[in-house]
């Protein structure tokens, strides 16, 4: 890779935003599994596995499954966040493989929030 220049940062940022940010990209839904030590200890790997299985079965090109770390509320892990285009992100708490599957089918595929497992919608205050 050739020497990076300050203005290159924006280009890299813009490029990745196409997949990261749904508003600018081709994906319809993004699923974030919170995989910090707290999440993993509480069973995030099982949740991840269940979602991967569902992804395979759904064989959908507009769903992005990705990871992130601790979402802050360690006592309610495993947690996932579902972002849909032009809608506030929804955080789900205290999950297991079965609940993750239900969320995938009803929310990710069906577009309906699973109220019983949802904590809240929206994002945190940063900066």
């Amino acid at each position, binding site marked *: 890779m050739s020497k990076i220049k300050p203005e290159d940062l924006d280009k*890299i940022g813009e490029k990745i935003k196409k997949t990261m940010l749904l508003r600018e990209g081709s994906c319809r839904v993004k699923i*974030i599994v919170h995989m910090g030590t707290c999440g993993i200890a509480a069973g995030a790997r099982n949740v991840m596995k269940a979602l991967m299985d569902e992804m395979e079965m759904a064989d959908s090109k507009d769903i992005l499954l990705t990871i*992130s770390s*601790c979402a802050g509320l360690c006592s309610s892990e495993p947690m996932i966040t579902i972002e849909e285009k032009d809608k506030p992100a929804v955080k789900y708490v205290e999950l297991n493989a079965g609940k993750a599957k239900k969320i995938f089918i009803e929310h990710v595929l069906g577009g309906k*929030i699973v109220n019983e497992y949802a904590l*809240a*919608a929206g994002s*945190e205050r*940063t*900066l």
Partner: protein
Amino acid sequence: MPHITNVMICTCTNCISNGALDIRDTLEAEIKQQGLEEDVLVVPTGASGLCVNGPILMVQPEGIFYQKLTGGDIPNLVEEHFLKGRPVKSLMYVPPGEESPIPELRSIPFFKDQRLIALRNRGLIDPDKIEEYIARDGYKALAKAVTSMSQEDVIKEMSDSGLRGRGGAGFPTGRKWDSRRKDPRTPKFVVCNADEGDPGAFMDRSIVEADPHSVIEGMAIGAYAVGASSGYVYLRMEYPLAVKRIQLAIEQAREFGLLGKDIFGSGFDFDLQVFKGAGAFVCGETTALVASIEGKIPEPRQRPPRTTLWNKPVVINNVETWANVPVIINWGAKWFSEIGTEKSKGTKVFSLAGNINNAGLVEVPMGITLREIVYNIGGGIPKGKKFKAVQTGGPSGGFLPAKLLDLSVDYEQLDQAGSMMGSGGMVVMDENVCMVEMAKYFIEFTNDESCGKCTSCREGSLALLEILGRMCKGEGKEGDIELLEELGEAIRDASQCGLGQSLPNPVLSSLEHFREEYQAHIDDKKCPAGSCKALIDFSIDKEKCIGCLLCAKNCPQGAISGKAKEVHTIDQDKCIKCGVCLDACKVDAVLVA
């Protein structure tokens, strides 16, 4: 400066026919009227998909939808939401088929009072992808520093920001950097102290796991400011995920040319490596940490005016301190210094643990009260029990009782109250926690972790432990409290490093606030919290027992006898005082005395 709030107004044909353009004009006029034009930006967007309910507004970053708006709604909306920060529920969109909309994240007490600066990317980016960090303004501060700021400019920015060391001692970061910059010896080093070891503390681990590049970028900026060309992240092996993530992050930064030679074509060279500590608590102490990196036995040394690494200048800062640096460079010292209190600027990350409903990682502006942290963010004490104390600053810190709950969190106030900010561990204790036992727990920890160099620390902690152990067994005697105090002061005076000097703090601060509890252990041979096993007996209240057999079924020793619908009894010889019956009983018939 970017706008804080973006209001997306749908201007599709459908919404325009419903009056979206008039709404937009009214909105802009009202925002101007309220003097909010610098904070709120109105953005026309395309079809939102909800246009049958138009005109539609979506407010970012909160992600709130407003629907079926009329011009008359706008003044109230602007005043309530954008000026006072209170979303207007009556205008919000409720998805069909839902009786109650799920709450807005920022209306939830746990998230409401938090403000993320060090944790700005938590839960948002994939820590294994450098591009995602870059997309959230990552490495822009480094680019700015090395291409457009002098070393003095960077240090001035840090000094003006008022940032103080987040490892606990609170030394002004700018001043620390300045003294190393002026040191003529070379090469120079920067070190990230991630040797987090306080029981109940997990701030550093979480930051490194969630956003390793924020630490790397902060360190690179620090290295530029002082003239260092290499650095170490001192991370304990007990944090395997954090080690893995930061190692990957360093490799990616090298690949992108953000570490290495001639960064951003500025001529500045810097590289970084991870040093895995073996997990000794004392290695978090500065002089022991450098000894460990030098390959020596990690024993603290007589603290020189300035710590060195291989006799060369070194800047050692905590994970959270480094993570704050890029934000200060990007947003400026003035912006940062407006957050927090007069002498403690910015935010602080705390790990909230113990007897608390919402255990987790929180970042709050300095100056918030302990009560707000425990009750609003933490959601109070489980099972409706009473708050007894909160322990801040780990084994070096102290206990703060209920009467100090309104204390505001800043370096000076916590110090004055006999505790300390520490790195940010916060352990909450309910009414059933015995303070003598708790002090014993912490002394056991420091006794175990003492490096053994100073007699006062090595043997002193053992002597404290012996006395506390006796008290918990009901063998405390008159004069023990005075002995604890005398011994504690001697250990504090005679030990060389911070670990030894602060070792007696849990004993001394619990004695200050809970002396009567110690006295009860000695005089009455009782444990008022009902926790010290040697001093309590379990029995069954004959009036309350309904003979349900629940306690008998759950007792691991088979110590409870009795038939259904008859009063049960506990065989004191078999009872191991585990408390299982107490938790099992539904009618509060198990007595602890």
